[in-house]
């Protein structure tokens, strides 16, 4: 197996004069879970479309599973499973029929697909729903069926565009658990998301996208250390701007997001001391996480 599962080099894409992906470069190693993080409109979906050969880059090189894309995207897609952002299951069919029809798109015979269906249903916890129509399934079940469908061709690489958007917490945890079991089987996963918890739990490495550019890349914990590297105090209540001038001398950095003030403090006790006696405030001290990184790197973008 080649040492690079997915490689983007200087990839650029624009629509109607607006640059959506801007000189993007990254590589994904086999067996890795790589996250593409970014706010809405950062170019995440365009990147996955280019990876599958469904959109052509204006400049740059894309290699997926050893073949150049889009020129030979069909060969790459044979070994890729896709979980799209919006379910596109076939509503006319039952759960079983969806898997059957999709397997045949990969050139498998009816018999070959039927032999695989029981294990796919088991993987998706849908054994009891084999003959239910897709329209009867809950949102979480539909996502799991989409995931099972993406595995019908036994792909090396899974491409997931916001796989848990719109799911309740229980359904989301179930998907995460399934994805981890796929990683344990040696699959490579590319995941786009704007859920920081999802990225932190699943991704070996990730890159943060702002305006189609790669603004930071690395392991989640390395990124947190590098970008934040100290305790965080979240302060609710009060006037964030007045508070910010009060504690500024003791903070490495201050970020205001909505009604919450995020104080990045190497020595949190000094900040707490400053705010002692303020009954109107609620303080939460915690270790830094990926959301802080995200806010720091994309915050200014959102303010525009």
């Amino acid at each position, binding site marked *: 197996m080649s040492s690079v599962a997915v490689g983007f080099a200087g990839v650029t894409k624009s*629509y109607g004069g607006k640059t959506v992906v801007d000189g993007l470069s990254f590589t994904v190693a086999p067996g890795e879970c790589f996250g593409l993080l970014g706010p809405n409109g950062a170019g995440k979906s365009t990147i996955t479309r280019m990876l*599958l*050969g*469904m*959109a*052509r880059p204006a400049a740059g090189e894309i290699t997926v599973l050893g073949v150049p894309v*889009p*020129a*030979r*995207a*069909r*060969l790459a*897609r*044979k070994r*890729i499973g*896709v979980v*799209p952002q*919006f379910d*596109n*299951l*076939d*509503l*006319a*069919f039952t759960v079983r*029929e969806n898997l059957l*029809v*999709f397997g*045949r*798109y*990969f*050139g498998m015979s009816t018999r070959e697909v039927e032999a695989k269906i029981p294990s796919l249903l088991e993987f998706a916890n849908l054994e009891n729903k084999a003959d239910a129509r897709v329209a009867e399934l809950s949102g979480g079940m539909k996502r799991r069926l989409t995931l099972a469908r993406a595995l019908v*061709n036994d792909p090396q690489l899974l491409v997931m565009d916001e796989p848990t958007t719109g799911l309740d917490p229980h359904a989301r945890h179930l998907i995460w658990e399934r994805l981890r079991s796929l990683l344990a089987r040696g699959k490579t996963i590319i995941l786009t998301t704007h859920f920081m918890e999802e990225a932190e739990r699943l991704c070996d490495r990730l890159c943060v996208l702002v305006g189609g550019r790669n603004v930071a890349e690395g392991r989640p914990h390395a990124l947190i250390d590098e970008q934040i590297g100290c305790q965080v105090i979240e302060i609710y209540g009060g006037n964030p701007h007045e508070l910010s001038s009060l504690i500024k001398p003791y903070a490495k950095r201050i970020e205001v997001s909505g009604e919450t003030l995020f104080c990045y403090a190497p020595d949190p006790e000094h900040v707490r001391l400053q705010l002692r006696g303020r009954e109107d405030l609620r303080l939460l001290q915690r270790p830094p996480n990926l959301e802080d990184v995200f806010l720091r790197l994309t915050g200014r973008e959102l303010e525009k």
Partner: protein
Amino acid sequence: MGEGYAAVLPANAWNWVAVWRRNLLAWKKVALVTILGNLADPIIYLFGLGFGLGMIVGRVDGTSYIAFLATGMVATSAMTAGTFETIYATFARMHTQRTWEAILCTQLTLGDIVLGELAWAATKACLAGIAIAVVAATLGYATWPAILYALPAIALTGLAFASLAMVVIALAPSHDYFVFYQTLVLTPMLLLCGAIFPATQLPDAVQQVGHFLPLAHSIDLIRPAMLGRPAGSVGLHIGALCAYAILPLFLSVVLFRRRLMR
């Protein structure tokens, strides 16, 4: 640029079958209803127009009006079945239902999908055409083997009209636009090509236009086959229908690429 188009053309000669089988599986669930519709429609028309108008006009083109009309209706229904399957069902799969979007994530290319959809629309056209031919043969207005002779022409008609409709859906922003195609293209064709009355009734200049239309070629193949007459210029008619099937196929793939793979 050339390689960009190579990636969307049919990848091989059999990939499209998976798309055709998907549509077959969906159709099987409503097969009984559609077959009844395919049969009821021509029966109503043949009885209504055939007996009603037939009484007034008598013999046409050396045969009874109802037999004349039945042959025209076989061609026309292949045209409408091939067209409607494409502009309604295929358009929905391409646009609202996201079926194509899902298929494009597999090893199939855009060309494979279009080919599979065309083959399926032609299949529906055959079912519709055969239904009328069966009704006509049952009533004694055509011979049973004639259905067999007409079948290749019916299939080709369905393919040609599905292919033309494929260009229409590649361009239409929403299904509201299809009414233009129906009223400005299909309905005039019905009147210009000798489906319900002989085209010789029309002014010369109009007749000349009619000769170029795909439905005219289709009728010139199907009518002699069903009435047991020798057909003229068979090669020309088949060639013309093939051109109407193949050229729009490539055009539609180019247009779909522009629409779906930006």
